[in-house]
């Protein structure tokens, strides 16, 4: 079997950093707009959906720790379970999925920049410089990607502080009475919410890059918990500040909220918020890009650099294909659907299959 040799020791990171990696890959464009989608389904009670999603994804994280053990990643598991050819082609699909997420995350954020800051932004040129940046980061290796993610987490935490404005100008009564909507709706709210938690599946790829991977489980769970708290805080803030009817009309509630934040030296905080949140977007896009490249690199033996350059070119040229708001919306919905099935369908399935296969192997030897 094509076993992966241990990655370069200088590229490995300590398990503690899983908190940051996980958080950075989960927080993307979604944090600015997810309230609209979940409140459509579950109303004021959809903060319960956030909690439930956090719980469900934690279970998936634990499953992932069962699937990949020391020093093997998704590609190994695939070829072990499905055999070489099918395993490789499934891994290939995964790689493509990671790339498309990386491209979509970036492109949909450029859409925000176009709407809020510069109507006449030249997207192609802008993408070229962004992919140069991404290449610069990704080619530095996993450690650099993680380092960037590490710093981006502080940015998102810093920005989250500014949601306090919602509580000082809002209507706390909005949240009452609790459990007004039906349980089935609350559970349905998990589906749109899961988009915000995507990023867990990346662990399958970067697992070998974590020192003492087995001990990392608690950090990953903490990271997932941090994301849950983060989303919960944001949801509560938006629900206190807006009412449901209003939320449906607003595409990016968080940005609208930042508009009312004024300081003596800065007004209209959303302009600073959008610029700073860009760091978080790049971090999350990076992680996906790195995972996609790593995935394809592992199955094809083409050098990491070549794949990365090829896909950044594809990323730049994708602008001709993804050229309207509707297209981006469609792509995002598709990816979020795919992500949900991947997380709650495929990963448990893989776990079961792997247990069966391993059991079979053991029996043969026994």
């Amino acid at each position, binding site marked *: 079997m094509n076993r992966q040799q241990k990655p370069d020791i200088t590229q490995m*990171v*300590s398990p*503690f*950093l899983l908190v940051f990696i996980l958080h950075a890959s989960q927080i993307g464009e979604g944090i600015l707009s997810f309230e609209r989608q979940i409140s459509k389904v579950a109303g004021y009670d959809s903060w319960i959906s956030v909690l439930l999603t956090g719980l469900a994804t934690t279970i998936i994280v634990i499953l992932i720790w069962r699937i990949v053990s020391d020093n093997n990643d998704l590609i190994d598991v695939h070829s072990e379970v499905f055999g070489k050819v099918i395993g490789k082609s499934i891994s290939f699909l995964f790689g493509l999925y990671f790339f498309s997420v990386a491209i979509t995350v970036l492109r949909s954020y450029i859409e925000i*920049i176009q709407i809020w*800051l*510069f109507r006449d*932004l030249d997207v192609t040129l*802008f993408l070229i*410089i*962004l992919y140069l*940046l991404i290449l*610069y*980061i990704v080619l*530095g290796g996993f*450690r*650099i990607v*993680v*380092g*960037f993610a*590490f*710093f981006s987490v502080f940015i998102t935490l810093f920005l989250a502080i500014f949601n306090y404005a919602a509580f000082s100008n809002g209507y706390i009564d909005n949240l009452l009475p609790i459990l007004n909507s039906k349980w089935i709706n609350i559970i349905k709210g998990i589906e749109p919410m899961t988009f915000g938690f995507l990023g867990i599946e990346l662990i399958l790829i970067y697992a070998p890059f974590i020192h003492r991977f087995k001990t990392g489980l608690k950090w990953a769970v903490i990271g997932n918990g941090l994301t849950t708290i983060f989303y919960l805080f944001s949801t509560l803030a938006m629900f206190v500040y807006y009412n449901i009817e209003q939320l449906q009309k607003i595409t990016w509630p968080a940005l609208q909220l930042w508009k009312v934040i*004024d*300081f*003596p*030296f*800065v*007004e*209209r*905080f959303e*302009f*600073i918020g*959008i*610029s*700073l949140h*860009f*760091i978080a977007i*790049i971090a999350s896009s990076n992680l996906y890009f790195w995972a996609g490249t790593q995935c394809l690199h592992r199955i094809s033996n083409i050098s990491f650099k070549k794949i990365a350059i090829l896909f950044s070119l594809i990323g730049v040229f994708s602008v001709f294909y993804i050229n309207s708001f509707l297209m981006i919306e469609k792509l995002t919905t598709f990816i979020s659907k795919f992500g949900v099935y991947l997380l709650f369908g495929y990963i448990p399935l893989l776990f079961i299959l792997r247990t069966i296969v391993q059991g079979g192997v053991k029996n043969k030897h026994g």
Partner: protein
Amino acid sequence: MYIEGIANPDNVQTVIQRITDIEYDQIMDSSFIGQMISDNEQSPFPQLMDSERPDRVSSALIEGKVAIVCDGSPHVLTGPTTLVEFFAAYEDYFLTWHIATAFRIIRIFAVMFSVLMTPLYVAVLTYHYHIVPGDLLGTLISSRKDIPFPPILEVLILELTIELLREAGARLPTKIGQTIGIVGGIVIGTAAVEAGLTSNVLLILVALAALASFTTPIYRIGNTIRLLRFPFIILAQMWGGLIGVVIGVMFLVTHLLRLTSLGRPFTEPLFPPRWQDLKDAFVRLPFNLQGKRPIYTSSEDQNRINLNKTKPKKGKRK
């Protein structure tokens, strides 16, 4: 030069290896070596600490670093080093820790201010009039009313003037140099505002930014900081104001993350995060909390306080 038993032999080996690999006919100063053996020659950041202070070098040796002394040069290189170390003045250790910590934070704030202030001015005035507070708007507009240049040119002209003054001051003998600085600063500044070439708001910002860039205790990184703001100013103009500045910051952060000093990460203790080493990074905690040597030197003897061991021997090598 290093202290056996404290310095990590790997570091020593790296330094010796790299120095032996140097092939050049003239080594005038230790900074030649510094440039030749640094991990990334293309980087504007110095990757080895450069000091002419014996106290700094001796404390670096005790921390487990390697020092490179060059014949005929007052400067001694020490390494491995980290980014934050460049912003730590040795006087910090002579003051009580609260005051030293406050000064360090002021210095780091000054660096950020120095790099980002003028680019932000360009960004805000060129693209983001929204974020200017209403009360400041009148002041800014009326101060810029009669100025023929766009903010980018205005900033570049003034920044270059400041650089000119600094350069002229540095080339002249000390006494005249100081005079040039003051006379040039006041006269040219006021004249430029009166003539309507620059706005007085900008003059204040540029002067403050220049002042802030001189707070760095190590001269070499001060140069880097001063020149760094030019790409930022250009990015702010070309890449859409704040977004451009943020892209610049991202490139800078990545660059710093990629840098290494003698193979050790340059941005430590921020990343990889080593909580242990934060004790002497942005803050300087009291001596009783400084019982360990910094992790990034991977010293053979981690404890600074240990009475059982025999005194380490000093070895001298070039």
